[in-house]
């Protein structure tokens, strides 16, 4: 069942068209991440859903009720939408204690005192903040403030929890920890989560489904995290999801040849239409190098030892690509190359893109 339905929503600020005719559905109980580069309009979409902004056109439906319609008609204000929101800067009220912060939604809902007390304490225990209920936010660390914000957003049992990059202000270790905790909470409480972020790792780790947004505010692909990473439908998605190598090919004498050289691409899954310029895209992890095996011949341009891995930059007929070999494997299989040595390069997976499309997304 769809809990949030966004249909043809557009939003502009002055002359800047942030969202244009965007549609999206979020299913009940799922953890949905909206992934996109900064400034792409993902936060605007979240604010539209929360009700902090009105769409210029299009409708937003929540639990089968229209909550916003283009032009500001029949808008349900944010306080009547029954959502939990966690902000990037925590937005914990500095003049209230932890308890008062978390109790506030219940107080507004006129829940009786005894019940407020038990529910707040339960919630604080759930986010690992027992015993800190009398503290003021200024006495808490960033991670603790984020937990208070989370508890406050969840205490009134909202049907939807909206999170706007809540982990980006935390340090790397804490971020990882909180990532697991949010996932755990979501499963425990069965709440629908919409999580907005620019961090691919968080998006992949957290989500049941991911929607990737490009810089113009269009959703370019929606799917499971594995789907998005392994089968990008769009050069933007491929490029955005992680470090990418690109290798341009030339069609000469009925054969695809690498870069400016004469080495023939030896694979079977070649693009059919030879009239366009093609570029092969692949991850560093999809490159297999060897001393004498199958594949293209390349020259090691740079070699760096990074501890757990060896990093190589390899030149194949004017195309440069990056790859990593695990140190353990490199030692066992004699893959410690010096700069200037030649090697053989094979690929586990290639994605074919038109050159003009790649030029648009790689800057």
């Amino acid at each position, binding site marked *: 069942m769809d809990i949030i339905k966004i249909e043809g929503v557009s939003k502009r600020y002055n002359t800047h068209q942030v969202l244009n005719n965007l549609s999206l559905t979020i299913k009940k109980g799922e953890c949905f991440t909206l992934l996109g580069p900064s400034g792409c309009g993902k936060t605007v979409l979240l604010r539209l859903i*929360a*009700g*902090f*902004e*009105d769409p210029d056109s299009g409708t937003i439906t929540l639990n089968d009720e229209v909550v916003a319609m283009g032009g*500001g*008609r029949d*808008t*349900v*204000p*944010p*306080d*009547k*939408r*029954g*959502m*939990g*929101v966690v*902000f*990037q*800067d925590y*937005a914990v*009220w*500095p*003049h209230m204690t932890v308890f008062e912060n978390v109790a*506030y*939604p219940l107080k*507004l*809902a006129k829940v009786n005192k005894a019940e407020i007390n038990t529910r707040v304490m339960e919630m604080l225990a759930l986010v690992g903040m027992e015993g800190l209920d009398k503290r003021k936010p200024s006495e808490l660390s960033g991670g603790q403030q984020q937990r208070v*914000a989370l508890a*406050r*957003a969840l205490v*009134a049992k909202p049907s939807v929890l*909206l999170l706007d990059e809540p982990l980006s202000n935390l340090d790397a270790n804490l971020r990882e920890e909180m990532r697991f905790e949010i996932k755990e909470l979501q499963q425990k409480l069965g709440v629908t989560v919409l999580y907005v972020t620019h961090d691919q790792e968080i998006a992949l780790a957290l989500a049941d489904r991911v929607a990737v947004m490009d810089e113009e505010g269009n959703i370019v692909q929606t799917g499971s995290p594995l789907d998005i990473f392994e089968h990008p439908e769009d050069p933007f998605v491929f490029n955005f999801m992680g470090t990418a190598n690109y290798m341009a090919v030339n069609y000469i004498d009925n054969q695809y040849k690498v870069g400016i050289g004469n080495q023939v691409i030896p694979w079977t899954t070649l693009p059919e239409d030879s009239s366009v310029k093609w570029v092969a895209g692949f991850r560093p992890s999809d490159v297999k190098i060897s001393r004498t095996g199958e594949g293209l011949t390349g020259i090691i341009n740079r070699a760096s030892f990074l501890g757990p891995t060896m990093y190589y930059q390899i030149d194949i007929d004017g195309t440069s690509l990056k790859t990593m070999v695990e140190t353990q494997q490199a030692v066992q299989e004699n893959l410690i190359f010096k700069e200037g040595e030649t090697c053989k390069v094979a690929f586990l997976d290639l994605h074919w893109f038109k050159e003009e499309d790649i030029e648009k997304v790689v800057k």
Partner: protein
Amino acid sequence: MNKSTSSFGVAEVILFLSIAILVIVVAVPILLIIFNAFWVNGEFNITDTINVLKHKETYQALLNSLIIATGTMAGSTIVGTFFAWLVTRTDLPYKKFMKAMFLIPFMLPSFIGALAWKMLLSPNAGFINQFFIDHLGFTGPIFNIYSYHGIMLVEIMYLFPFVFIQVCGALERMDPTLEESARISGAGLLTITRKITIPLVLPSILSGALLVMLYSMAHFGTVAVLGIENGIFNIPTLIYHNIHQSGGSFDSIRTGTVMASVLIVSAACIIWLQRKILGRGNYQIIGGKSFRPMELKLRGLRYPLLIFGVLYIAFTIFLPTAVIFLVGGLKTYGLAFTPENLSLDNYKFILFDYQVTKDAIKNSVLLGLSAAIITMFVGVMISYVLVKMKVRGKGILEFLGMLPFSVPGSVIALGVILAWSGKFGINLYNTVWIILVAYIARYMAFSLKANSAALEQVHDSLVEASRACGATMWQSLKDIVIPLVRPGMFAAFFLIFLPSLRELTVSIMLYAPTTRTIGVAIYTLNEDGDTVVSAALAGIALIIIILGQIFIDRITKKVGE
């Protein structure tokens, strides 16, 4: 666009109300001044305006305002920059204490200072001059305070903190790595100071200097106390003098509007220039963070410079203050300061027996309280629209909100006379209400500043979080916004209440026999030759101001924790 259809009306109403208040209180009086200055009998008449300006008296007053302001600005810049450098960038002993001392002149009313200096250095009766003539064999006064030099010196003593504060701030916040990298590149301390430090703090120095200029041009008290004796008038004193002498004749008011227009234009130019200087990109290297700056070792000069600073403070702050209290204790002005001549009788007299001073104290306290409360609440509302609300038409309010910052007190007083003397059906002239209206206009800037700063601290997401928790617009205002801006409101209240207790510039133009304020009473009693009573009242005012200041410091410290 607005947050929802239901709040659309509310936002519009608040915006309209804010604009209306600023228009009535500030914009209309200013427009009336300009209208009266350039229109005669309903027709635009620039030649007549020029004729007024050509009049020798007017022309001289404009020139005097300029001369005094320029001299005061130059002096304040030198004194302020030097002391700021001394307490931030050297190893002067007791720096913190010295810094606090240099800020004291800020809270002392300069016209009371001028009064003290008149007692000390008037050519014939001044205590210092007399001492030199009687005991050291001088044949004439060593210094005549009734002169351009005298006026400028007294103004410098009370205005230099404007420069001092700005430069201190810039020097403290300047990233020391900027200087350290110059030092590593091989530059000596002098080169660093010349090529790095001075260019970086120059915007702050200039901005402080311009503030002094603005303040001094429109300054009434010092010139009124020290200048009139020798016929030295500046713009505000001449406006007052003309209107006072003629009992509010049309001619005197018209001349006043022309001079006030000159002040308005100058103030606008100065504010514009100051914003331009501060707004330039190169100012941003001075961040908000506090660093530990490089300190110059004064070596042998450490104690001589400390003694110099202490003497400066003793001479400019403690000596005049002491004189006020001592004279306030004398039975008759002119007697020697001996135990049998000194008593608390004058103080008792003005507090309990003398109707004029009792009224003045009551008026000032009531006016100060009402103005502070009204302006505080109105300021919160206007600041809220300016900082937080997204409403169409906010641009007008932004412009109107700038006005109170740039309009000098004497201009406001004149404008208020024009606006509230029955022209629009309401005649408040000669009542206490006209002073209240003028105070609100005069102190609106303080309230807007304090409340805007407090509201800017309240991040939008704090309010949005409460909306998402189920709070309506009013509930989030009540539960989140108001509690968080309360310190700003407190600050605004005291920023208005304390200065209004010693206000002179506005009240002197508006008072009636029963509506004297403390400032007016001190000034008029002194003019009437009632020096000892005037000094005693000034002493009481100083005590109230100092106690109030201590109280504020306590409160702001508590809020800060």
